[in-house]
């Protein structure tokens, strides 16, 4: 194309090579700027506040700093949902270790616990994050691979199945805590494994480590209407979460540390759920562990769950016999 001899490199560039270089640089810069275009969609309100960014780890906060953090959360809730929330930091009690027991002979799979949990803990509604999943299991096996999450019979229970709700087992040897690279999740003295949502970096290692699939990730901005917000909040449990953090069942920490029962238990119509302090020998759960036939899920993985399944002596068999022996329903059921 060009027969004109090129100027030696040491001399000033020609007009043509300068323009060519300038066009290349300009188009390269415009491509770089265009690649950053998605940043325009960042809402300044989605960015962490300076106080939130500088906030210390939960365990390192002084009482005054905790009060400031709770106040910040309260203001954020008011701004985001127009709700006047009561945000607290409820601490564990000495001499209390929580244990859950669930009676598989009683559970009918109505999923009321699932949705009561969502109502109580301010989970995202779309997608709806559910801590509890109810497995419909064929009679005669505890192989969870054969469980079905999506059963939709007109009414439950179905005669050929039993129902096994699974939620966080609050393990005494929790693999989710071990894998967290930033110590954003830990086990409290009363046995509840909690997450500091302001410390979590969203790597989801804990979700992968949990053998019970008990942790949930906020893939999207949690969607929650103002009238759905439960205004009674606590730092470690049901305060609204931002996008990109893990969350999990805390046995309704804000309720149970004040002596009340978890929301899933309150919603159970058949009394299949039992909760209490296992260190109290008079408690219902201590009695169940002593007297009932109890098992834990995936015992072989060594997680030492605090969530126990038990069943009653007699249970109607799949062929329908057993239920009406001696004219009585199973154990008065």
């Amino acid at each position, binding site marked *: 194309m060009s027969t004109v001899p090129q100027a030696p490199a040491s001399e000033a560039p020609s007009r043509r090579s300068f323009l060519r270089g300038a066009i290349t640089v300009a188009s390269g810069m415009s491509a770089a700027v265009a690649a950053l275009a998605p940043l325009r969609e960042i809402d300044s309100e989605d960015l962490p506040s300076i106080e939130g960014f500088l906030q210390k780890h939960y365990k390192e906060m002084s009482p005054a700093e905790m009060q400031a953090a709770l106040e910040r959360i309260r203001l954020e809730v008011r701004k985001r949902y127009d709700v006047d929330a009561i945000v607290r930091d409820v601490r564990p009690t000495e001499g209390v270790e929580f244990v859950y027991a669930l009676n598989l002979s009683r559970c009918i799979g*109505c999923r009321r616990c699932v949705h009561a949990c*969502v109502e109580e803990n301010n989970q995202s509604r779309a*997608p709806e994050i559910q801590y509890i999943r109810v497995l419909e299991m064929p009679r005669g096996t505890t192989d969870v691979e054969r469980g079905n*999450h999506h059963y939709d019979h007109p*009414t439950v229970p179905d005669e050929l199945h039993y129902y096994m709700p699974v939620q966080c087992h609050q393990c005494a040897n929790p693999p989710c805590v071990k894998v967290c690279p930033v110590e954003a999740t830990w086990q409290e003295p009363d046995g509840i494994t909690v997450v500091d949502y302001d410390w979590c970096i969203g790597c989801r290692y804990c979700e992968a480590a949990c053998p019970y699939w008990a942790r949930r990730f906020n893939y999207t901005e949690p969607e929650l209407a103002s009238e759905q917000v439960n205004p009674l909040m606590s730092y470690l449990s049901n305060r609204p979460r931002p996008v990109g953090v893990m969350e999990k069942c805390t046995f309704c920490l804000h309720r149970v540390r004040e002596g009340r029962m978890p929301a899933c238990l309150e919603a159970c119509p058949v*009394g299949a759920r039992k909760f209490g302090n296992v260190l109290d020998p008079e408690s219902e759960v201590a009695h169940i562990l002593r007297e009932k036939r109890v098992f834990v899920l995936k015992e072989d993985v060594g997680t030492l769950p605090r969530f126990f399944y038990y069943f009653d002596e007699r249970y109607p068999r799949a062929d329908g016999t057993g239920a*009406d022996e001696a004219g009585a329903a199973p154990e008065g059921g």
Partner: protein
Amino acid sequence: MPAVASEPVRAVIPLVFLALATWFVRDARRSVALPIPAPSGVTRADLELGPPREPLRDPPTIQNGPFRQTCRECHDVFPSPADPQTSLLQHTHVVLDHGLNDRCYNCHRRENRDQLVLHDGRGIAFDEVALLCAQCHGPAWRDWQSGTHGRTTGYWDRTRGEPVRLGCTQCHDPHAPAFPPYVPLPGPSTLRMGRAAEGGPHARPENPLEKWKRPEEPEAHR
């Protein structure tokens, strides 16, 4: 000369950059369609269990037209047949579905209708109905006493509040004690659980891991 040889290549570089810029800008405008399932639509009202069953308390009364009467006020005046099980003219709303226990006087005391009757003929108050049930349902009675049968709500910590325990007839209709079936609330819709595959209530969600699994043997006990 190398500069001359690469000249067409160098001319293409700005074009590539401009094409990239156009693509980035268009891509940023395109909204990302996340597969977000719709809300389940469950409200607090759906979770209301309602008040527990209202059993007859002491003294047992029923509304008879405009009058509120105890059982004795009628039954002491009008004798009822010795074995009224097959021919109820009164109390027709009672549906008796209690297994082999299908005689009124198995539980109701014939001599005093304001009482219930134990197997040995002793009368007990309606409030003590658990003693009556316990005669047949021993394991349930034992479990109920220790709190492992029946609902316990309210407080687990007695120093802070009282637990709420329900009696036999606050959950079970003594005439038809089997628990009624419930309509299940909607199932999971979180992203990772996916949607139920088409094909009926027992369909399983599509699990990419199952591609490597052998086809399942038919389940024997279905």
